[in-house]
């Protein structure tokens, strides 16, 4: 199938990178997470409940909603903080959230990861000269993030391809079942940094989620 790809671009100040990324990644994951599945005998399953938390940003005039799962939050924060460290200073970079499905292949071939949705968030970091500009930036970035959230919601509500609901044996090919309170679709986060010349000098791929290719 085709993988759909969405690109979001934001321009932020250095200290806003973390929160802006968290806001967008969590908004996407909110829509792509489900409650834990509990399979019952007849092949049916019931779904757990997903809670939500409002998070206020400190450096941006913005509040976003994320799923109420500390584990997931930790994973995302770790990824974003690595991205932020790699960005260090001004420059451009891109962080990608990819949802994929695993397709089991026969031995000795390893499983394939087939992405079905990729979100790329391009970040452009600027440095501001004085406090007044920073204040304006706070509000502007807040508005921009609001627009991005609306974009995300628009895409998701097209209700395009979603993996079929799996049987119990297949659930790990579709969902990430490692968390104890929510169950997002299988995803991985990668990033790359562009240097100030605009060329992609280093493509740094980091595996932050257990990936069977690493086996």
């Amino acid at each position: 199938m085709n993988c759909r790809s969405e690109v979001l671009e934001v321009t932020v100040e250095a200290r806003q990178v973390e929160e802006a990324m968290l806001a967008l990644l969590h908004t996407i994951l909110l829509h792509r997470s489900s409650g834990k599945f509990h399979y019952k005998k007849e092949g049916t399953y019931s779904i757990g409940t997903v809670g939500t938390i409002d998070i206020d940003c400190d450096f941006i005039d913005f509040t976003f909603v994320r799923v109420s799962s500390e584990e997931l939050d930790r994973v995302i924060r770790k990824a974003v903080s690595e991205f932020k460290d790699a960005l260090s200073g001004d420059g451009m970079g891109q962080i990608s959230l990819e949802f994929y499905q695993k397709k089991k292949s026969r031995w000795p071939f390893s499983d394939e990861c087939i992405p079905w949705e990729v979100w790329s968030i391009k970040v452009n970091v600027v440095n501001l000269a004085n406090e007044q500009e920073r204040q304006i930036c706070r509000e502007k970035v807040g508005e921009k993030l609001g627009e991005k959230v609306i974009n995300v919601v628009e895409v998701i509500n097209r209700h395009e391809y979603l993996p079929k609901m799996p049987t119990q044996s297949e659930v790990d090919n579709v969902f990430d079942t490692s968390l104890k309170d929510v169950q997002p679709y299988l995803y991985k986060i990668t990033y790359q940094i562009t240097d100030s010349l605009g060329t992609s000098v280093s493509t740094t791929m980091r595996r932050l989620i257990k990936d069977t290719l690493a086996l």
Partner: protein
Amino acid sequence: MDSGLSPQDKKDLDKFIKFFALKTVQVIVQARLGEKICTRSSSSPTGSDWFNLAIKDIPEVTHEAKKALAGQLPGIGRSMCVEISLKTSEGDSMELETWCLEMNEKCDKDIKVSYTVYNRLSVLLKSLLAITRVTPAYKLSRKQGHDYVILYRIYFGEVQLNGLGEGFQTVRVGVVGTPVGTVTLTCAYRTNLAFMSNRQFERSAPIMGIIVDHFVDPPCGGQRPANMGHPCNYRATDEDDGGQYAGCQDSQEVCTTSFSTSPPSQCVCTLSPSPSKLSKPLPLDSLLLPLAPGLVTHTLYASRLSYHPPALAGAAELCHPAANQVLHAGKEHGGVVSGPAQPPHGADAQLTAENAANTPGSSGDDAGLMHSGERRKRRDEGRRSLSPADPVESLNAFTRKIGAFVNKPSTPITAASLDLPFAAFAPRGLDTEDNDPMVQPPDSPPCPSPLQASLHSQGSEGSGQQDDFVMVDFRPAFSKDDLLPMDLGTFYREFQNPPQLASLSLHISSQSMADDLVTQLFKDSLPEKLAVYEKNIDEFDAFVDMLQ
């Protein structure tokens, strides 16, 4: 028309749409409460969380939504709308946004009801959660309390967007196709927020005759107009049965009144249900908020079921019965209740608030404020009207009331002994302060306002005890008992043309001021000073080098 849906599917679909509508309203109203929402994920399904999302159900909101729907479902031409509006302390109101849940004819026959539609409705609710934090009204609602409150109103039928002003924007939250139509959720929000300066608000006519007055027997006697919304500041109790909701109305007993400093004065009554109805008692911490100018309903932050009757007109009626309320409550506790501000003295109410705001910690010495007249006041509790003729006199009649359980002898001090305006607020000698529980209530932190002091002294037992409140007496400048026996006008006329300052009346002949100064400098032996500096220039240079 037979949509080919099995009866079970049809039933399920109707149920889904009904609960989706109710949950939509909950999400929207909760997003405008002004607080951050936090719910927990639960891996084991409880069976009661619709759409697999932990969305609390505020009983009042469910009740209103059900009332608006009146057993119907959103259908073609019948939309369910939640209107969010802002109401300032002056009584102006403005629609901020309208969320519409609509149904159109486009059917998706092949879709599976019990599975796909349900999941898509769940995703749509998540989108709603995200979008409600993005529209401009969210930030406004987080800051509500002091100058304005956010209200909601639910109606069913035709969508009305007239109140949103020009240039309103629409955002589509999402759509879900079903076999009987497509569910669409949108939000139209106002972009032109510049109404405060123009004061061009309109009170639109009642819609569909739905009276959104959920207090069956409002103690303040006022009937809210049909188009008035509900305040978005209710916190759900922890009780699960929605039936408790009806019970809340019977137990309103406390009325704390606060005043606006801008005339005409308005009284806004906030009522808290009795503690038994709240999962937690009204925390007194909430009353630590200073009585800032502008509308402060302290209980907005803590109280959890607030009722805002129309503030402007009918302030008289509002305060009056409120006074009754307080009086009665006060009597029960054997406390002293002096009549609160009577609205004919709009200025009085205003001044009292101002005073309370300006009152420093050791505000007043209640002894000073207790005139012999106070004893009379105690006896005349039932008397509601104070002498209207002289506002100042009636101000003096607002003595500082001691809390019910304070054991303090009253020492009347006549006006003559006060030789300063605001003398009442000058720090007093230690002996009076020590004995004065009003100023230093036992076992409680220093109170910035006498209101608190009296409440603390009542034993801090929670909302049931807050029926006394304190009126602070004060002496504005130029009031009758002031030192200078003149009124403001005379004072102004007399001191309107003060004599010139001596320093400014130098020989202003042909020389300019600057010249004058320079001349003076030179006269002050500046050249000599310069010579000294030049002589020691090496020393100074060495010093500067040392510093670097």
